[in-house]
């Protein structure tokens, strides 16, 4: 019988929600109590049941924990799995993103703080710094966002292992067309409203998250601004017109239906609460041209916030939509956002949510 698992990484540990029908859920945890879990990945490639978690202990530093049994038991390498080479004179602060590559079932990408990308060719056991991005001449000018300076978004291109996109706060979108050897900024059209003289710089934008649609459309939630790219990230056009606000962190694209995208709006960068204090998701079925609110089953008065990686889609059909909040609730919708149910509550701040169906 297949099982759906939801990895819920929080400020103080990781919980795993499980269900065989996505209606009744059990909750296991905490794993790594007091460890800040900002990154998680569920690797179902080749029918695996692997889960990876980026865990930071405020005392004992960052690490990557791995599970081969769907998050029930965990192991940690005795040697550092993600570490900066000696010549960089840099120490890893935190793993912010773990992304299994769709083109090679042995490759896992890791986005970290300080701004850097690592690549594993052994399914996440060991990682090597991607020198092409680390040595980019722009790197000294990349600034930390409020959560730290990190590569937090990694978007490989299915079918083309040479092409890869990353996003960072603050630095913006960078693309590679040679499997990470060289990188170029790719932010035309993305506004950096906070820049005093040039609001459309070549780089330096604070892009919060990029999602890839099944047909290759890209959707970006920026630090004020929501965008779509129809040309693989070369240029970006605003799709914020129909949204209640252009601020937010999370954005998701349907894995099978082109043009369906979800955005979780936040009132403003100075008001990090839901618009109108009404927790909600905004859904578009036309690639962001029009949006409609989805809030049934969500708290009608809420002062929480949904962070950058705290929303996810599962791999089932129909797709399940999940998100977690800074006040420790996790919600699921099985009808693409029309109705939500709470599957966890009273957890610490939710930093990352990932979901998948395991065979």
């Amino acid at each position, binding site marked *: 019988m297949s099982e759906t698992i939801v990895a819920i990484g929080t400020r103080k540990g990781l919980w795993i929600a499980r269900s065989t029908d996505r209606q009744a859920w059990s909750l296991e945890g905490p794993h790594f109590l007091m460890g800040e879990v900002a990154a998680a990945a569920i690797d179902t490639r080749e029918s695996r049941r692997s889960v990876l978690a980026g865990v930071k*202990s405020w*005392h*004992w530093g960052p690490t990557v924990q791995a599970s081969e049994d769907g998050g029930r038991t965990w192991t940690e390498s*005795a*040697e*550092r799995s993600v*570490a*900066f080479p000696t010549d960089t004179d840099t*120490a890893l602060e935190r793993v912010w993103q773990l992304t299994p590559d769709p083109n090679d079932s042995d490759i896992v990408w890791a986005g970290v703080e300080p701004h850097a990308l690592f690549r594993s060719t052994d399914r996440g056991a060991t990682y090597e710094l991607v020198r092409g991005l680390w040595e980019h001449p722009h790197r000294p000018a990349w600034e930390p966002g409020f959560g730290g300076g990190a590569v937090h978004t990694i978007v490989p291109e299915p079918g083309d292992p040479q092409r890869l996109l990353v996003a960072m706060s603050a630095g913006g979108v960078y693309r590679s067309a040679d499997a990470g050897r060289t990188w170029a900024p790719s932010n035309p059209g993305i506004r950096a409203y906070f820049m005093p003289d040039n609001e459309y710089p070549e780089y330096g934008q604070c892009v919060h998250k990029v999602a890839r649609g099944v047909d290759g459309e890209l959707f970006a939630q920026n630090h004020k601004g929501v965008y779509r790219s129809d040309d693989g990230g070369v240029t970006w056009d605003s799709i914020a017109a129909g949204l209640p606000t252009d601020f937010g962190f999370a954005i998701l694209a349907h894995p099978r239906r082109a043009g369906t995208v979800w955005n979780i709006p936040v009132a403003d960068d100075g008001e990090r609460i839901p618009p109108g204090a009404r927790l909600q998701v905004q859904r578009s079925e036309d690639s962001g041209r029009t949006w409609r609110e989805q809030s049934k089953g969500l708290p009608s008065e809420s002062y929480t916030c949904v962070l950058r990686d705290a929303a996810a889609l599962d791999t089932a059909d129909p797709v399940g939509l999940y998100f977690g909040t800074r006040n420790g609730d996790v919600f699921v919708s099985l009808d693409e956002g029309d109705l939500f149910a709470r599957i966890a509550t009273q957890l610490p701040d939710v930093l990352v949510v990932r979901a998948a169906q395991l065979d």
Partner: protein
Amino acid sequence: MPLTSTRVILPGLLRDLVGGMAEIEVADDTAGQTVGQVLDRAFTTHRILEGKVRDERGLIRRHVKVFVNGEDATRGAGAATPVPAGARIHIINAVSGG
């Protein structure tokens, strides 16, 4: 001259990673030794502790304290602090966090 050793005493949170071991005994280097050198030897056979106590540059992590015979080495010379033969080195998690 009798052989002596330095005791590296682990905090409870790290003992779980090394099978419950409370301390590691490290043979003293009669030519002189520092905190960094003692930790190098202590962690040779307990590699997971290396990444917990020090970052990849070899620096003691910000919220980790190392005491040599009761004196806070992380307030002084850090890893370069001299360690007398027969010393006690306590590794503790700093009182921090929320």
